[in-house]
């Protein structure tokens, strides 16, 4: 019988500016929160495996081997620890590998921590460091950056389906409204549609970053960490934890071409679709069963495109649903209830784990008032690595 894996503890720092702190300390803070949440802090050396998700500590913080330093910072020696890297999907990949460790039978309790400190370097350097994900000869050397690809993708989408800049602004308003109520969010300040789209000063207040993407369609640069404690749900230790585990029903990933120009169809995100299909199959559910989702809106267009690839909406129609309010907290299918990457922030290595923390908070009914989804059953997250060339999908269930 297949091993069931559940999340029994969650931890999360306030995303924002933690650049004066050491990365291992920030991750340890989230890890300690997760262990405390599970009521397992004193017994932390009984954890069988620590998996850390981090993208570029070497470039951002001039530090390497962060999994090893974290274990020591937590006073958790001799627990085994390894680092998983998958660009901005490092967090969800770390969860996937942690899941595999438990499902293989080799570990009963796994601590997964995702973290990143990006603000020790300047914004221009951060843009450059993130751009190292791209193909060096064919993309990075040309001066291309992730926002550049976001912009080009958005233009294609707009020209084909009629999406407007105002639609992207509507998503930002929704996400900021949710994030304002999320105690962990980087930016806890609502923005108005008049200010960023309709008003006479909107064009300058919400300036272009990579046309047609504007500042309020791109996520901030953030520091932070999040952690989840995974457990084999049939382990006798399960009763020792403070709370009932939230089951991971499905987790899967897929890859696509490295060079964005080599995608079969420039408007499709095949890795998203394939990862979601595999996760649905594993969980035995379909898009209609998902109650709410955290979709990787590093660029607002991605929240829309991903929601279509995973089957929530017909291709090219997701923004029509946004206009009708279907993805608001009280809508038919709430998306980015945490504020998404736009408002919650995007410390690249932490995001995948942060999304899982949100899934658990919602499924447990622990979200703040005003952004708690009513009676959720299945929550889904999609963590987007590179520009869609390595994507991880996660489905959690409240049994």
């Amino acid at each position: 019988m297949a091993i069931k894996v559940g999340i029994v503890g969650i931890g999360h720092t306030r995303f924002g500016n933690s650049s004066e702190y050491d990365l291992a300390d920030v991750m340890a803070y989230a890890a300690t929160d997760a262990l405390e949440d599970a009521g397992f802090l004193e017994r932390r050396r009984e954890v069988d495996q620590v998996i850390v998700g981090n993208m570029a500590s070497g470039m951002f913080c001039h530090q390497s081997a962060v999994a090893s330093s974290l274990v020591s910072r937590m006073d958790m020696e001799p627990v085994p620890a390894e680092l998983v890297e998958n660009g901005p999907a490092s967090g969800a990949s770390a969860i996937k590998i942690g899941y595999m460790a438990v499902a293989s039978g080799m570990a009963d309790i796994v601590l997964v921590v995702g973290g990143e400190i990006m603000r020790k370097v300047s914004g221009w350097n951060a843009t450059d460091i993130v751009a190292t994900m791209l193909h060096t000869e064919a993309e990075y050397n040309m001066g291309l950056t992730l926002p550049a690809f976001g912009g080009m993708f958005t233009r294609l989408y707009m020209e084909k389906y009629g999406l407007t800049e105002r639609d992207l602004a509507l998503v930002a308003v929704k996400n900021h409204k949710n994030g304002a109520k999320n105690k962990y969010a980087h930016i806890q300040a609502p923005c108005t549609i008049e200010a960023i789209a309709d008003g006479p000063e909107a064009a300058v207040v919400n300036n272009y970053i990579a046309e047609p993407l504007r500042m309020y369609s791109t996520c901030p640069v953030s520091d932070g960490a999040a952690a989840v404690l995974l457990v084999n749900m049939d382990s006798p230790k399960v009763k020792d934890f403070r709370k009932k585990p939230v089951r991971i029903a499905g987790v899967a990933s897929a890859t696509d071409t490295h060079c964005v120009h080599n995608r079969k169809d420039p408007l499709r995100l095949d890795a998203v679709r394939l990862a979601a299909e595999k996760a649905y199959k594993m969980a035995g559910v379909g898009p209609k069963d998902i109650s709410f989702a955290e979709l990787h809106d590093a660029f607002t267009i991605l929240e829309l495109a991903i929601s279509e690839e995973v089957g929530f909406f017909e291709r090219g129609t997701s923004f029509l649903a946004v206009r009708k309010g279907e993805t608001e907290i009280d809508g038919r299918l709430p998306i980015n209830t945490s504020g998404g990457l736009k408002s919650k922030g995007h410390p690249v290595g932490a995001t995948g784990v942060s999304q899982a923390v949100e899934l658990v908070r919602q499924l447990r009914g622990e979200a703040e008032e005003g952004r708690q989804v009513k009676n959720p059953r299945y929550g889904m997250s999609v963590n987007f690595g590179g520009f869609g060339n390595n994507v991880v999908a996660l489905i959690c269930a409240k049994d």
Partner: protein
Amino acid sequence: MAIDELEKKLRPPEIPLKPYPSKVITLASGEKMVVREARREETGILLGTIYPLIGVSADYYDIVAARMYSEVLAWYRYRVANEFVLVGSIDGVIAGIVNSRHVTNKLGMSLHTLAIKRGLRVGAQLFAAKMEHHIDVLGEEEVYIVAESPIGFKRWMIELQLEDRSSQFPDVRSELGGVPTFVLTRKLWDAVRDVKCTGTRPVSEEDLKSANKLIMPSEYVQIPGFKR
């Protein structure tokens, strides 16, 4: 105060400056920031706003605040020539202050930009308002600009593509520290005005009223636990 012969000698010669036409900008949060010229009698409020930041070393706030404090005080006491001060306020609470000197009819000297409210590009908007005043209102041909903070340098030197006259140092230099300078010319400003400078005029009676009495901020993100 009575201006006697000695005081007349101590005061710098005055070039009559056109007033800055107030404008209002709706910031991303939906809050409205009124940008208007400060009045000399408001100096107390301005100095009280600037003063706490003299102790903040992060982002070079300390040196910007210390220098702006002295410039605003000198402006009040008529000991600096042809300075103007613009202030951005939200419901009367000061969000940011900028100041500059009108050196001649053709040349402006940008002094400082102090953003107190963060996260809403207040600094960028006020800097643009300052350049608008220099070139569009006062009619100058060029403005000398330098930066104390590396972030300021990149935002202005690169985003506005300022003309680099640092090689002409020390003959061409900024009054601000006597350092090598970069220059915003009318041509460069024309190229970026639409993208950098915004605001609605005239300001409604209601908004003007709310900005009439300036209020010192009661909290500073830069100073956690600040109590006035």
